[in-house]
């Protein structure tokens, strides 16, 4: 049973650039959430996608956007990168309904902005 996968593993970008991160959910899951985890902090909720639409959003600027595809995989896009965007970006999948509280995380993409 494939778990949550994310790509790439590591990424180095320059301020002002744009980045796209990718996530494939655990088999059977239909909901994808994205989190930002700064060093020494807990994950911060960015947004959640279900049925190819953004359903909820945390306190992140519009520079952060996403997409969910018909196969439930998802992308996170960040525009106009800032140094403060350097973090581990985590994708978590869950099953809408009774399983919505059981989130499973991927290994993350470590983004460094220089």
């Amino acid at each position, binding site marked *: 049973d494939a778990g949550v996968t994310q790509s790439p593993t590591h990424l180095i970008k320059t301020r002002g650039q744009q980045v796209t991160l990718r996530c494939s959910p655990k088999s059977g899951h239909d909901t994808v959430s994205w989190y930002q985890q700064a060093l020494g902090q*807990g994950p911060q909720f960015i947004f959640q996608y279900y049925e190819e639409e953004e359903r909820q959003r945390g306190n992140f600027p519009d520079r952060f956007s996403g997409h969910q595809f018909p196969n439930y995989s998802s992308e996170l896009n960040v525009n106009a990168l800032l140094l403060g965007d350097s973090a581990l970006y985590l994708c978590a999948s869950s099953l809408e309904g009774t399983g919505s*509280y059981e*989130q499973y995380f991927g290994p993350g993409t470590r983004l460094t902005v220089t």
Partner: protein
Amino acid sequence: QKEVEQDPGPLSVPEGAIVSLNCTYSNSAFQYFMWYRQYSRKGPELLMYTYSSGNKEDGRFTAQVDKSSKYISLFIRDSQPSDSATYLCALLGNQFYFGTGTSLTVIP
């Protein structure tokens, strides 16, 4: 005020000790309470979840929720060096809220 407060530690204990990890929260609307374990440079791994006040046991792990005090705990019995990780509490309201994590080291 943060939704969830968690002592970051670090916490260092000898092998075999009982470990107590705690979080407090401010919003009484939270319904689900989770504990995650995160090894260095890995994603968080769901350990346990509870819905109501009381205790839930799974092997060496016990999760405890006291909704009246807005306090949740994770106890680890007979701690092992492999338990060395960061432990994150998480609460589900309209979204997931995570604590900052407590770093635990179990010394052989």
